[in-house]
């Protein structure tokens, strides 16, 4: 309630812009477009990024240009989860992280 304004920003609208672009409108009115292949490469789950050192485990080159989301769903009131066509489904993208990526 009294945290900095960005802390309270949530998704007010979400849609598929085109074959590989995800669109999100935030509660502060800002709009962001994401390349879904880049989202797959930016995954921060424990399989893709080392939990202790934060070193990147996932090799971006190994992510196919053909990868697409299958399903996108909200997690609690702070994040969303993406099931990808390559079988990867452990990534939780917090709204704050997406806002950073969207900048």
């Amino acid at each position, binding site marked *: *309630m009294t945290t900095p304004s960005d802390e309270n920003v949530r998704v007010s609208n979400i849609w598929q812009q085109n074959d590989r672009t995800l669109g999100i409108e935030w509660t502060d009115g800002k709009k962001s477009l994401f390349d879904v292949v880049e989202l797959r490469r930016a995954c921060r789950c424990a399989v893709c990024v080392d939990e202790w050192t934060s070193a990147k485990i996932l090799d971006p080159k190994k992510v196919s240009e053909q990868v697409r989301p299958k399903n996108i769903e909200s997690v*609690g009131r702070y994040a969303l989860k993406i099931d990808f066509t390559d079988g990867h489904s452990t990534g939780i993208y*917090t709204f704050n992280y997406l806002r950073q990526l969207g900048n």
Partner: protein
Amino acid sequence: MSLIKSISEKFQKSSRGDGIVSEQFIKQEVLNRLATVMDPDLHKDIVSLGFVKDVSFSGGKVSVTVELTTPACPVKEKLRTQCKELIDGISGVTSSEVTMTARTRASEQRATLDSLAHVRNIIAVASGKGGVGKSTTAVNLAYSLAKAGSKVGLLDADVYGPSIVKMTGVGAPKEMQGSLIVPPEKNGVKIISTPMFGTQDKATILRGPMVAQIIKQFLTQVSWGDLDYLVIDYPPGTGDIQLTLSQIAPISGAVIVTTPQEVSIIDVRKAVEMFVTMKVPILGIIETMSYFVCDGCDKKHFIFKSGGGTALARQLGVPVLGEIPMDPAVASFADQGTPIVEHNTAGASAYLEASGKVAAQLSILNSSDAKGLNHFQLTWESK
């Protein structure tokens, strides 16, 4: 007949309380006057908030229903008196009746899970560390809200150290509704806790994934039904269970329990940060063991440094919802399985006051305008 005379005759007529004109006139006057009554939390008048319902006038008597956002409104009686005085002041009104009701506003974060579909608000009661009176607070908060007329459920998520069954004396669940467990009730509060499904004396030894399963079942396979508030007693700290809860259940807001000491406050900050990360709004702080009232001199003895909770609340910019005194009755009634709010003690009135403030904070939150999506799901259409 002159115009002035005609109006004054209408007035005469209206003060006798007969005829359609007078009825409309009185009703409008009632609304005009009630438009000066402000809701202290929402900072708007009760007429524009749409709280005033069913204004009627017949035979000199005005009846009005005022619908508040929570049965636990702390200023309910004050508002009633204020409304009554304003209505009684209208000429032509000989008597009035002001009925106060409540329709709890659903939290913006409405559940999409079937079992939680009719639960309007989910309150997390959490603390940074154990032993600060968190479970006692959860129980008494639940009973205080119920005492004020709300429909309340209590979920004991402290799987490793469940104490709700002991504190409330609740029995085991007896029936199923389809595939859902019907939670047993004690003094009007629906309760679910792990000891109901095993022996109370046996220690619960469970691996993380098992615990997550139990928590998930408590939320999704219990027939919670129609509830104004579901109070969840969180385990202390910031671990797996807390994460699971915030991922499955759309938590409306969190109440943070702390004692006044410095160490406790440091741990509380971590709990607060966890909720902020998960975008669960902090409703406020309840400080327990704030002071001890001497039975000989009625003086408030501050055993620990006073004002720890207040200092924390100021740092975080959230309200202090209550300062609960050390009341031996709180502990002894908890041991007997009867909630303190059923008795008239210092601890009981402190909890009743705190629960009113919790309800008020939720009302403020639920009527705020910034609407985010509660739950969304998008199926990608690939070429």
